[in-house]
Structure formats: C-alpha cells, structure tokens
C-alpha cells in the first residue's frame, strides 16, 4: 500500500509540523511506502483559471511545474493525508495552492451528486483521503467550517473525506492517536 502526505505547513509552524510527524508515523505503521511532500519546498504556481486542463489538454494542466508530479503521485497512492494549519476555517494557502491545481483529476462535465451538481470523475480509482488540521487554541467556528470544507471536498470526488483538528499543543501520543483514528475511519489497515 502506498501513502502520500501533503504537508501544507509553513516553516516554523511547530504545531502543524508535529502533526506531520505523527501522521507520517501513523501512515508508516499501515503502508509499505510513505511519501511526504513538503509543498513549501516545491515550485507550484497558482491556478490561472484557464480551464486548459479540461478543454485544451484534457486531464493535464498547461502549466509546467511540480504540481504534475504531485498529481501523478496522488493518483498512484492508496491513501492521501493533507496536514494543514486551520486558516480561518480553511486550508493554508500553501496547501490550497496545490488543491487548486487538482482540477485536472476531474472531468469538466456536470453530474448530480447528493442532490447537487458536481463534476464527473475522470479516473476509475482515487485514493482514500484524510485531513488533519491544527489550531493553536479552541475555535469552534473555525472547526465547524473546516469540517464543512473537508466534507465538501469529498463530494467533489463523490466520496467521503474524513477530518480531525488538533487543538493546542498536543503531546505526541495524543497527536498520534488522532492520526490513527482518522486512518481507522477510512478503513486503512496495515
């Protein structure tokens, strides 16, 4: 089993970096191969909204940068974990930059999912996905928004994404338990 972790932390964000370490360890206990991608170290440009990945080179972004490598790795994984500081209830801009570049994974044509319009899936198989967020202090509204955002991202892939938020400075065992819990919820076993 292959696992991919998208590290959406900024340098010096020790809380989120701790979450990355514990999620990596949790994945390593269940997967044969764990790839950790530090998004801050890659060259990933902002999506230009040109829809070239749908109408010019279907399935591939017209921009040539590190995002394509991440997308190939994403599709080749059985499980993907995003780790991010919860940012006003959403993802860090670092992680968001990559997620905005994921639209080539979908087919532009519309379909109905759960009563709402979404896009068709381009591929037959996608990895199971979990999202681990961190917050320096309790913030019920941010946690609620984060859960909603992750659930909505799951709808885009016609499936359920699971999320948890680590609040405050966690001791490593509790951060590890949180990561293990997330993997349990999506049925990722050793």
């Amino acid at each position, binding site marked *: 089993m292959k696992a991919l972790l998208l590290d959406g932390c900024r340098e010096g964000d020790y809380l989120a970096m701790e979450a990355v370490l514990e999620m990596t360890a949790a994945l390593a206990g269940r997967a044969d191969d764990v790839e950790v991608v530090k998004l801050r170290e890659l060259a990933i440009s902002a999506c230009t909204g040109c829809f070239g990945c749908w109408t010019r080179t279907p399935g591939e972004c017209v921009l040539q940068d590190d995002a394509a490598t991440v997308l190939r790795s994403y599709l080749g994984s059985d499980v993907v974990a995003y780790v991010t500081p919860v940012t006003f*209830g*959403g993802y860090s801009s670092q992680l*968001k930059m990559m997620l905005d570049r994921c*639209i080539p994974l979908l087919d532009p*044509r519309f379909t109905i999912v759960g009563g*709402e*319009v979404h896009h068709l899936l381009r591929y037959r198989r996608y990895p199971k996905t979990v999202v681990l967020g961190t917050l320096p202090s309790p913030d019920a509204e941010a946690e609620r928004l984060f859960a909603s*955002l992750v659930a*909505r991202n799951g709808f885009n892939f016609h499936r359920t994404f699971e999320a948890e938020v680590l609040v405050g400075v966690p001791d490593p065992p509790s951060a590890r338990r949180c990561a293990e819990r997330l993997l349990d919820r999506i049925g990722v076993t050793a």
Partner: protein
Amino acid sequence: MNALILVGSPKGRVSASWMLGSRLAEGLRDHGVTVQYGMVHHELRSGEGTAKLLDLFDSSDLVVLAFPLYVDSLPAPLTRLLELAAERRGRTSAPGNPRLAVVVQCGFPEAHQCDTAIGICRRFAGSAGMGWAGALAMGMGGSLEGDFRRLPGGGKQILDALGKTAEALARGGDIPDEAKAVFARPLMPRWLYILTGNLGWRLKMRKNKARRPIGDRPYAQG
C-alpha cells in the same frame, strides 16, 4: 468613504469577478464612495504589489472580496493575502476598522455551494478585527461572460441586487437580505444549465483544437 475591491480571479479584468465587482464599484461611486481596485493574483507576484495591497487594505473603510469559488473555498492567492493581512493587523494593533463584504460566484448552479467560503471570509474578518457587512453568492457563474445584457432577463436580478448592495454599503449598512436572495436566484433551470454547460465544454475543446477526448486519463496507472 474609501472602498477597496479586491478581485480574486486570476483572469483579472476579463473575469466574472471583475464583472460583478466593477458593477458594484459603479454603484458605490454613485453614492459618493471613492473606489480602488486590487488584482490579487497579479499584485501578489511581487513584494511591492503585496505591500501596496496590504496598505490599501488597512487604509480603506470597506473591503470587498470579489472572487470565484475554487475547490469550495477562496483561490489560493486570495487566501495568502488574507493570511498576510491578518498577521499584519495583529502586529500593528489593527489600524482603522475596515468592514468586509464578499461577492462570490461558483460554476455550479447552487449558490449555497459558496457558503463555506463565505464562512471562511467571515471568520477572517473576526480574526483581523474587521466588521462583517455580509455576502452575495450566486451559482451558474459560468453564464457571466462579459455582458449582463446577454444573461436571461438582461441580468436584471443581478444588477438590482448589486445596486441595493451598493446603496446599503455606502451608508455603512450591511448587505440587505433581499439583495442576497435575489442574487442567489438561479438564472435558468438547473437542467438547462447542465445541458448548456456540458455542450459548452465540448465547444471550447473544438475551439482550442484539443486532440484528446474530454475524458482522457493521462495519469492512469498501468
């Protein structure tokens, strides 16, 4: 009153966000508001541009975020700007007290798909010590292509909502509920939007001389 319209679309002045934001700006000007624009994707490419936007942010009485929904949220560069603005306002004990308003559109028919993004903007306003003036959200953003007159009904419902919003914001009020409801009303039946949307993708492919099928799988394994 000084207002700053931040256009969060990478397409800048040829975007649906510009179309909506600039029309709102016209309404604000009609009510005596001085309006400036910031093109977020363009300005954030340089330190100078970023500093300019942050200065404008803090010197405005009203900041309007006009953006397309990207993956259920704000486009990444706009998120980055909000991170920087909140950090700076935290460091400098929040100079001034600008209010924040939002105009967001998504390519799906349902306006409610923008709700999480609006919540994120509202949470940002709270974090940055800004007032919250509300949000306009619409679906079927794919129909906005440069001219309101080409929309069903001549785009009257959108123009009415933007007009009422400009009037309210110019006198320091919140976006009226009536404007929110009218703005969110579907421009056409959902089935028709799906039909024309799906046809539209194919027409764009033909125009772009795409050589692969629409459902191609370039990253398929094995």
